[in-house]
């Protein structure tokens, strides 16, 4: 039905009244132009950052990605430290956030009494509405002291002495740092991941679940062996969506990461991420090469998040097709 509507040219669907045809033609072009603006915005963003970061890439070459030096005074820039920080904090956020999101989605769709499903789901979604700078302030003033007083000393005492893993949990309980940032990021991406999971869990055909129950499966077995495998693609899509958010999150991380150009194995140490470096330094960056290096970092972030988000979208679309939308 919709196909027919789309392919029907305006001229045949309206009687040959000149004003109508002209109006239709103008309207079509206006609307198309606005659609193209969206497309152009993405291309222009990529192009402008490529343009801006060109001189940094030209000056430092491939070493821009592998080097660790970041010295505005000497005019030497290499991005490995912020890249490392972005990857580590996002990885931590995923390690913490994905299981929790899965738990929340399962709780809302399978466990909770019907009456509280809506309110609980709505409350979790509210987390997504809180501006990220509020997460940052809460992280800096409330959560970081909590971490340094209660959580980090325990981690350092218990996990510090263990060989290999111990190195991750050594050092002073500063509060701010990789681990705290990872946790704050996890809280921020939980609503996105869990709402995707919840939506797809809800559309698993009841016959599948009922058949499994009839064979004597427990509730958890139904979730593990029926619901999750059936929605696998979309679940991974949701996780990627969360990852895309975590990689580019700026304000919260800027508050709690510590902003020191520092690569450390310990998760207790402060560091910096691409987004935090941009937020802190860009407005003050005085010379062109400095600014260009920051833009180049932005381009790297843009390319990585684009790939991650595109993969997420492809997976979610595939799931929607399967459902026959």
């Amino acid at each position: 039905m919709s196909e027919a509507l789309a392919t029907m040219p305006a001229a045949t669907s309206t009687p040959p009244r000149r004003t109508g045809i002209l109006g239709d033609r103008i309207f079509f072009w206006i609307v198309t132009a606005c659609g193209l603006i969206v497309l152009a915005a993405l291309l222009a963003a990529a192009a402008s950052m490529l343009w801006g970061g060109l001189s940094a890439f030209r000056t430092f070459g491939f070493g821009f990605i592998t080097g660790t030096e970041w010295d505005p005074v000497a005019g030497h820039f290499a991005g490995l430290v912020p890249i490392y920080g972005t990857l580590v904090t996002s990885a931590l956020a995923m390690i913490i956030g994905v299981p929790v999101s899965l738990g929340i989605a399962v709780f809302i769709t399978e466990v909770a009494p019907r009456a509280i499903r809506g309110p609980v789901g709505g409350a979790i979604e509210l987390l997504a509405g809180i501006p990220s700078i509020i997460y940052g302030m809460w992280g800096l003033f409330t959560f970081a002291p909590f971490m340094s007083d209660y959580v980090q000393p325990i981690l350092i005492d218990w996990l510090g002495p263990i060989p290999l893993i111990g190195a991750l949990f050594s050092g002073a309980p500063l509060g701010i740092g990789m681990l705290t940032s990872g946790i704050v990021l996890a809280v921020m991406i939980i609503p996105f991941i869990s709402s995707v999971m919840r939506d797809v869990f809800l559309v698993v055909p009841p016959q599948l679940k009922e058949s499994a129950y009839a064979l004597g499966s427990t509730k958890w077995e139904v979730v593990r062996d029926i619901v999750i495998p059936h929605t696998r693609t979309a679940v991974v899509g949701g996780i990627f969506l969360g990852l895309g958010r975590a990689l580019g999150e700026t304000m919260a991380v800027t508050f709690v990461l510590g902003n020191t150009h520092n690569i450390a194995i310990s998760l207790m140490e402060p560091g910096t991420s691409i987004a935090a470096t941009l937020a802190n330094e860009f407005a003050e960056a005085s010379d062109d090469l400095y600014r260009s290096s920051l833009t180049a970092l932005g381009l790297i972030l843009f390319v990585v998040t684009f790939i991650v988000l595109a993969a997420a979208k492809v997976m979610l679309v595939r799931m929607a097709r399967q459902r026959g939308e």
Partner: protein
Amino acid sequence: MASSSTSLYRRRQLGSLIALTLCGIATALGLVFLIWIIWTTLLHGLAALSPALITEMTPPPGEDGGGLANAFMGSLLMVFLAVVIGTPIGVLAGTFLSEFSRGKKLGETIRFVNDILLSAPSIIIGLFVYELIVRPTGRFSGFAGGIALAFIFVPVVVRTTDEMLRLVPDVMREAALSLGIPRWKVTVNVLYRSASTGILTGILLAIARISGETAPLLFTALNNQYWSLDMTQPMANIPVVIFQFAMSPYEQWQNLAWAGAFVMTAFVLILSVVSRSFLNRKGGK
């Protein structure tokens, strides 16, 4: 034989119980964080709230008193600019996706790109607008800030408009077209009218989204210590002031930051809850 199968069954039941309890704990954890964050903002924010907040300018460091009047005004102006620029573009682009590109590759591509823009890092938008406007004009300005916000505003409106128009039954389009009404009139007078609540909700949601955005304003609007309505100059705005004041060592600045954070969070959350409840009612019908 019978006893071993009961013990297996019991073990599976126990496993299920443990797993589902963990799910409950995960949910509780999420809610704890929500309450903790809102509680912190409420506690610090209410303590710092005073009428001076909207009557006085941002104070110099270390000085008592002062408010956020210039920042509120700046935010208001820039959000307004973003809405004015973004609404027509967003609604029309949404119309294109829903009405004029069905089954076409171009439409699919734009929808795909729009969804990516929807979750793209907002600091990237800041960089982009810096290259686009700040660098050519040679200065930070309220215009640049408003345009940066518009880039975040548009994808949200495109998405909701597209979805809301697609909810309008095809029968209505066919009925209107069969009367010989030109297509643009059908779109404006029939489709927009029946999807108006949904489209408006999308705009409100988008306003909620951009009101709290900080990253794109950091190097577009920058900040301004004084009262200014001149959009061609750097402009104070709530998120950047909060950022600057919260990171400072001065207590009065930190208090003001909390007050601003409280007002902003309350505004954003109320707006998004109200508009979401509209949307849900619409979707539930």
